[in-house]
């Protein structure tokens, strides 16, 4: 039997759907790490990104810091944190979450500040000249218009964290990584593949959900640009007219 078929048989076995090493438990753990990580990272990075985007300050510094963060080797950092700060095995959750947060910050930060920067400066200028306070400009104008890009940042952060949360198992925690880490030493490659497949599947599902959310957050007035029949007619007219002028 080929490896994939075996992996699917393994997944389909009801015996693997209960207990502390069952799929639901591991899936829940994996989602737990991902959720906690993304929550913390959003609080830090989106806040920072909104600030940078709105004020234009610390832009260069943040881009530099972000690429530095990206360059950090996850596993190395995890080992270093676990040993250097004596979190050890008992408090393994702390270094794990720190490592994953570090991973999630760059895409979140980039999404947030590029989202705010993408808002037409004339729109912001108009909002300010009407007498909106800086907070009102941020909340009522910039964030609604930047939301699709902010969610885009969340999307790539979630994707990376889901994939990388397997490292939690490396320092004795749970999650889908357990299947991989436990099975490797005993050369149970079916189970390794099961771990990999489940992580991929979870990533795809989350990706699908977040893409839908991203679509929903495009403000109606911005979406309207693409869907207004009269405008489409105008554009079609423009095309015909230019085609006609070319022909003549």
């Amino acid at each position, binding site marked *: 039997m080929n490896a994939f078929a075996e992996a699917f048989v393994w997944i389909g076995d009801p015996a693997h759907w209960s207990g502390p090493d069952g799929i639901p438990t591991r899936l829940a753990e994996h989602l737990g790490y991902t959720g906690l990580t993304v929550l913390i990272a959003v609080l830090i990075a989106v806040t920072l990104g909104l600030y940078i985007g709105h004020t234009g300050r610390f832009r260069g510094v943040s881009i530099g810091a972000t690429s530095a963060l990206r360059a950090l080797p996850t596993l190395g950092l995890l080992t270093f944190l676990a040993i250097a700060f004596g979190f050890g095995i008992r408090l393994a959750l702390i270094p794990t979450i720190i490592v994953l947060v570090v991973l999630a910050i760059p895409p979140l930060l980039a999404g947030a500040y590029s989202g705010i920067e993408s808002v037409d400066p004339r729109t912001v200028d108009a909002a300010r*000249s*009407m*007498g909106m306070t800086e907070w009102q400009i941020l909340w009522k104008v910039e964030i609604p218009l930047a939301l699709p890009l902010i969610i885009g940042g969340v999307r790539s952060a979630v994707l990376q964290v889901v994939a990388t949360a397997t490292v939690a198992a490396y320092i004795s925690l749970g999650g889908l990584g357990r299947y991989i880490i436990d099975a490797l030493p005993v050369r149970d490659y079916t189970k390794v593949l099961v771990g990999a497949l489940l992580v991929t599947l979870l990533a795809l599902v989350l990706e699908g959900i977040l893409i839908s959310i991203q679509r929903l957050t495009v403000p109606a*007035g911005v979406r309207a640009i693409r869907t207004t029949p009269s405008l489409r007619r105008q554009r079609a007219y423009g095309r015909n007219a230019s085609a006609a002028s070319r022909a003549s």
Partner: protein
Amino acid sequence: MIRFDAVSKKFPDGTLAVADFSLTIPSRTTTVLVGSSGSGKTTLLRMINRMVDPTSGSISIDGDDISTLEPVKLRRRIGYVMQNSGLLPHRTVADNIATVPLLSGVKRAQARAEALTLMDTVGLDRALADRYPSQLSGGQQQRVGVARGLAIDPNILLMDEPFGAVDPLVRSELQQELVRIQKDLAKTIVFVTHDIDEAFLLGDQVVLLRTGGQIAQVGSPAEILADPADDFVNTFIGADRGRRALRIEEVSGRQVVVDGTGRLAGILNEGTHT
């Protein structure tokens, strides 16, 4: 009354946009700032609502030095209409018009009712209330911009080339609309344009600017036409090319009006005044 007193503005990059500018803008009339591109019109306008702060000199509204006023509060009592309409793309027409009233705590239902009334004022079909700016034509967007400027019933209305981006026909329609609105509401309007015809049509007081916000001439359209201060003004108002010097000629038995360059300007209607 708005007073500019020896106002200068030097931008951080060293551009001296306005130098030693003094002017009194009387209340409840329309003052038009006209000049070519880069003459400092927008800068002057934006100093009134503190979107730009002068480097030196002072500006007062009804005697209050505006540098002592809180910018957000000041802006909420001054209407501002910009060239690109500056509408919020994610809000409907009605919500755009009601933006400032909503910020100042007016109830939703009331704000919407007032927005609909304002749509009537600026000649917009109420059926457009729930459209988004991207679903409007340029001329309709400008009307929304004007309605929004009027939404707080401001004493002062700042208009920066509000009709610059629409075709001549719509522009002339919007100009007539503004003349009508101003007759009813009598706001203190400060209007910026580089179109001298628009300036003469709308302005009670016209301020002709050279580069650096230097005043070439101030006066009513008639005063400026009758007595241009210098060659610059002459050129700007088109008097030198004879565009303003009309004469009557006979063509195929009818009397036509021809300008100094010999171009046809119109047909003379006998006796009747319409």
